[in-house]
């Protein structure tokens, strides 16, 4: 048997699962997006843009902002773990940063809901420390709460990937640049980050698409308008049984997410070429 055929045979069962349990329902929902009372048409999309344009923009802004913040934070953490000179400080950070990594999104939603509320633990601590007066305390349970929840949960995952990639870089180039007197910020930006760019991109894309799909965080933290598309889809199905608009919203999220995945594909093809 040729190696090619064997390879395809080995991949096939896993691909079949994706095909039947994801692509097929995905096609059903894509077709459903264009179905208005049994006939094909654009009706669902007109309705979607009438009702949810604000939420589409809201979702894109929130997820993009979170992705940028996650990228900065994970490069900072990975960079300090790689370039930090004080072993105790590095050990503290290594111990500290990973805690939220595997905490389920629904748990993140629950604990941040109580932490970020107007009379939650964050404001209470600031008030007790005298940094805030009770009158100035505001609830963070709006778009800021969603961004905080996403960054809180996703940064450790990306930082773990990035720090791992940074650890496997050839140290000689770093030492050479250091001996030439390069500052550590410059080392990080000009030497370390370019070498882990691929891993960082993969981590951020995985985070981006994960955040696009999370229902529990917007439901738990901010279900009022404007909210994220996932909450809108759930609302459309649960309250109106309106699968047409729900499927149209789903299709719009797919376009948003796949445009990001396309960046990855292009980068990886370029690297292989």
């Amino acid at each position: 048997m040729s190696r090619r055929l064997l390879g395809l045979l080995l991949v096939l069962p896993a691909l079949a699962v994706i095909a039947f349990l994801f692509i097929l329902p995905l096609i059903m929902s894509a077709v459903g997006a264009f179905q208005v009372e049994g006939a094909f048409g654009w009706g669902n999309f007109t309705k979607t843009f009438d009702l949810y344009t604000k939420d589409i923009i809201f979702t894109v802004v929130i997820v993009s902002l979170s992705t940028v913040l996650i990228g900065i934070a994970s490069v900072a953490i990975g960079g300090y773990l790689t370039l930090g000179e004080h072993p105790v400080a590095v050990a503290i950070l290594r111990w500290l940063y990973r805690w939220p990594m595997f905490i389920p999104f629904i748990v993140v939603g629950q604990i941040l809901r109580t932490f970020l509320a107007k009379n939650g633990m964050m404001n209470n601590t600031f008030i007790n420390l005298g940094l805030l007066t009770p009158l100035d305390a505001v609830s963070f349970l709006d778009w800021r709460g969603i961004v905080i929840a996403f960054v809180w949960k996703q940064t450790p995952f990306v930082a773990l990937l990035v720090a791992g990639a940074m650890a496997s870089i050839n140290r000689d180039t770093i030492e050479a640049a250091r001996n030439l007197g390069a500052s550590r910020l410059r080392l990080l930006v000009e030497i370390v980050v370019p070498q882990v760019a691929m891993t960082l991109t993969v981590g951020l894309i995985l985070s981006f698409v994960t955040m696009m799909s999370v229902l529990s965080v917007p439901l738990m933290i901010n279900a009022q308008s404007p909210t994220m598309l996932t909450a809108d889809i759930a609302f459309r199905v649960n309250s109106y049984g309106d699968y047409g608009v729900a499927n149209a919203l789903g299709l719009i999220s797919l376009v948003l997410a796949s445009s990001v995945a396309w960046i990855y594909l292009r980068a990886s093809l370029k690297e292989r070429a």
Partner: protein
Amino acid sequence: MIAAPNSARSNPLAALWWVPRGIVFGLMAFFIFGPLFNLLLWTVAEKWYFPYSLPLEYGFSSWAKVFAPRGGAMQSLTNSLIVALLTVVASLALAIPAGYALARLKLPLRGLILLAFLIPQAFPNLTVYVNIARIFYEIRLNGTIAGVVLVHVSHGLVYAVWIATAAFSAIDAELEQAARNLGAGAFRAFLDVTLPLAAPGLMASAIFVFLESLDEFTGSYFVGAPDVNMLPLLLYTTAAGGNYQIASITALLLLVPSLVFMLIVERFLKADVLSRVGH
């Protein structure tokens, strides 16, 4: 965060670097552990209302409610664990051959195949799960453990396959070749040489899949509920009902395995495997 000592060796001012470090680490610790501590307080709060910063009375009456035989939480816990374990077994059975092929054998459209496993993570699952529920209803898989496991497998495969691929490509291909040259068959060489070497990476992918399954909410809701109750669903309904004590205890039950795995994951996921994820 990048600010740190440049000359820690003999500089007497080096100790001063602990001031910015202390502030940054302190803030990080507050934002990481504050919410977790808040959760712990809620699990033992008997009475806690505005404007008090701390509970007025502590006790374990909510715990007794959760673990009561008819509380429903035990059943949710068992269901969640069974589903997660079955999901791991099924995902690895699919991901080991696929990961090996993607790492070692010449495959046409390799990038596209890798990307295909990302699809379930790239689409708001909700609409897909609604349609899966419709299909499963037809073939009587709705409301069964098997149905929920299948949904979780499709969702967790990206971790299983990507990490398994990275784990296999981190192993020197010549080791397997050496075993072949000594007369071992292809399957024998894989079983005795490559698989044990890849085991830590595969263990890491199993951990990711397990947690992904435990975390999963939307699919379980559409395909499982109300026949198969899972912990995330219990958490959501109790939190929506305003019962923060029960919600927090459920959240804690979901948290403990997550934290345990977090502490041990780097033992399995080494840098050489990590740097190959997604390549």
